[in-house]
């Protein structure tokens, strides 16, 4: 199939294809980070994760509309404020949900799955009632549109670069918070031994609540970033939930490095395969490979302990 193209053409296509994989990678990492915190650190299966993401996207959309109407002069910078608001909104909702629902179910992880699925249905219908069933598109400031011309044939989309930068930044912040800060050490202490952590004076309930809130808040940021490349509808969140869970499980829960490595391998595999076959077959093969590897190595790529 490559006979007709020149070497130069092919070279630049592979560069751009790699770049497409990197954008997919960033999206996966952003979505999976929050989940990795909640699932990996707390063992809670949050099926409503996608809906927390969509909340972030809707917050971004509302911010964008507000700026367009009232502060058109500041429109070019609205996105940063929108991301902050998305983080706060999703995080606050997450803490509320933890208080009302999740904390009663820490001993029954499979039941959190059902309860949060119920929550996701309620959230979807809420979005539909409030924002309408149609998908909404967020208008981007001018500087985020278009692409950078690297060479004649290689063009790099600006919003892709933005999403990648954002991903790196958030990953660093999360890694710092979890592994270097006092609060992060408390989180990990609670994960390792809840009773002992309580005994040495850590307020485990508070740690749980903030951890869940942080995970949901990051989902909000992911949703905000996602408005740049996709659309936002009441059920958009559901599309990603399985992919995201697979990324986390494949990476080995509780391992930040594993999440990143697995997001990278899954996204690159998928985007490379997409070049040779139809999109849906590429997806099937990628998922099959992931499930196959998980059957051989259930602990995931970088695992601490999964076996019961």
């Amino acid at each position, binding site marked *: 199939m490559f006979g007709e193209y020149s070497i130069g053409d092919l070279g630049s296509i592979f560069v751009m294809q790699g770049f497409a994989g990197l954008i997919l990678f960033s999206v996966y990492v952003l979505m999976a980070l929050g989940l990795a915190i909640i699932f990996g650190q707390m063992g809670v299966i949050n099926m409503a994760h996608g809906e927390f993401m969509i909340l972030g996207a809707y917050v971004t959309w509302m911010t964008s509309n507000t700026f367009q109407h009232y502060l058109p002069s500041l429109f070019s910078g609205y996105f940063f404020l929108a991301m902050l608001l998305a983080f706060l909104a999703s995080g606050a909702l997450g803490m509320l949900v933890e208080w009302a629902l999740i904390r009663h179910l820490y001993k029954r992880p499979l039941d959190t799955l059902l309860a949060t699925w119920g929550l996701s249905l309620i959230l979807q219908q809420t979005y539909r009632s409030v924002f309408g069933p149609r998908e909404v598109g967020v208008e981007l400031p001018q500087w985020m549109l278009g692409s950078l011309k690297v060479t004649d044939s290689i063009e790099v989309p*600006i919003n892709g670069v933005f999403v990648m930068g954002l991903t790196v930044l958030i990953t660093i912040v999360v890694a710092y918070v979890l592994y270097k800060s006092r609060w992060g050490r408390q989180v990990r202490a609670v994960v390792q031994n809840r009773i002992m952590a309580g005994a040495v004076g850590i307020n485990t309930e508070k740690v749980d609540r903030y951890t869940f809130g942080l995970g949901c808040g990051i989902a909000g940021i992911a949703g905000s970033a996602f408005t740049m490349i996709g659309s936002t509808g009441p059920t958009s969140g559901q599309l990603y939930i399985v992919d995201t869970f697979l990324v986390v499980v494949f990476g080995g829960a509780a391992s930040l490095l594993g999440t990143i490595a697995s997001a990278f391998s899954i996204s690159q595999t998928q985007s490379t395969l997409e070049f040779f076959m139809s999109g849906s077959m590429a997806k099937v093969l990628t998922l099959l490979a992931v499930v196959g590897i998980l059957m051989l190595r259930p602990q995931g790529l970088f695992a601490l302990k999964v076996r019961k």
Partner: protein
Amino acid sequence: MSDEPNKGLQSPLRRKLLMGAAALPLISMLPRPSFGAGPATATVNTTGLAVTDTEVTVGILHSATGTMAISETGSIQAEKLAIEQINAAGGVLGRKIKFIQEDGASDWPTFAEKAKKLLVNDKVAAIMGCWTSASRKAVLPVMEQYNGMLYYPTFYEGLEQSKNVIYTGQEATQQILAGLNWIAKEKGAKSFFFIGSDYIWPRTSNKIARKHVENVLKGKVVGEEYYALGSTQFNSVINKIKLTKPDVIFTDVVGGSNVAFYKQLKAAGVDLSKQALLTISVTEDEIDGIGGENIAGAYACMKYFQSLDNANNKAFVADFKKMWGEKTVIGDVTQAAYLGPWLWKLTVEKAGSFDVDKIAAASPGVEFKGAPEGYVRIHENHHLWSKTRVGKAKLDGQFELIFETADLVEPDPFPKGYQ
């Protein structure tokens, strides 16, 4: 469910409905038609349909919930508007149209179940409904088994013809060929790249387009790609487009995927004012979600645009907005859905009966001069003769009409040489 117009609607529509209600006094000031003056029920209804001396019941069957609600809402609105207008003008054979609305919930078996309920329990005289091919395929055996009459509004893949269905949208050859001819002539296009969602309509449409490009236009198809419904990652296919540098990108991507596709296309530096793109799936409804700035410059090929400049359409658009709110947009399918109740009324009056067999037999040749798209006529194969038009998407989300066929295009659901 009853004939209250607000049942089963999404709540944002409620708001629009309130605006619509403001228009009610206007309607009630019209001379009230008196119902019951038509021919005797026994003569116009020999098959036990829900027809009384003053009323006739029809069904509306679309998704008011689920993923398809986004698309089907417009059709529901258009059908209700048409029914209201027909009633204001005296109804059908002196009878007021009452409708029962059922929700297909974007779930194909539910469509079949509700269609059966409408026919068996409610004995409706006709059903205005369905949107996706999948829902029509699910409903079709029910319509044939219980001898119902379905008015189906969506442009679709063809390869189907039934005594029990009137297809008010275009079938694939009708929609595609004229557009391809136009773009080949206008842009000198020789190479085409096809991209679609992965289901029967895009696949069949692309098959027809491919045969036309290769055999008639003597051009070349340099790529053909399908993505699962709901996909949001199109970077790979955009790279392939850049590699193969086609003269025309021909797309039939549907639903939410559209938003991602056009945004990513723009972000990758594909400028639609230089790169020709012909879509058969983006109507004004879809642009609402995509955003005019992301798709401006693309060409769409179908039979109706909201911006059509004729008296019928102006009145239709004004009435539609009066009923459903100033912000609503009207796409190709919405207009086709509006034709359904009108064509049924005209056919009933031509046949002088509500009986399904008589309506099926009387349908060919029925003309509707008041259609917003202009004059239409029902063909022997139960599809519509209609013009095909090409529009160019503008920043404000409307299309600018740039080409229309001189004559009505004949519907050909089983095209020879294209199968």
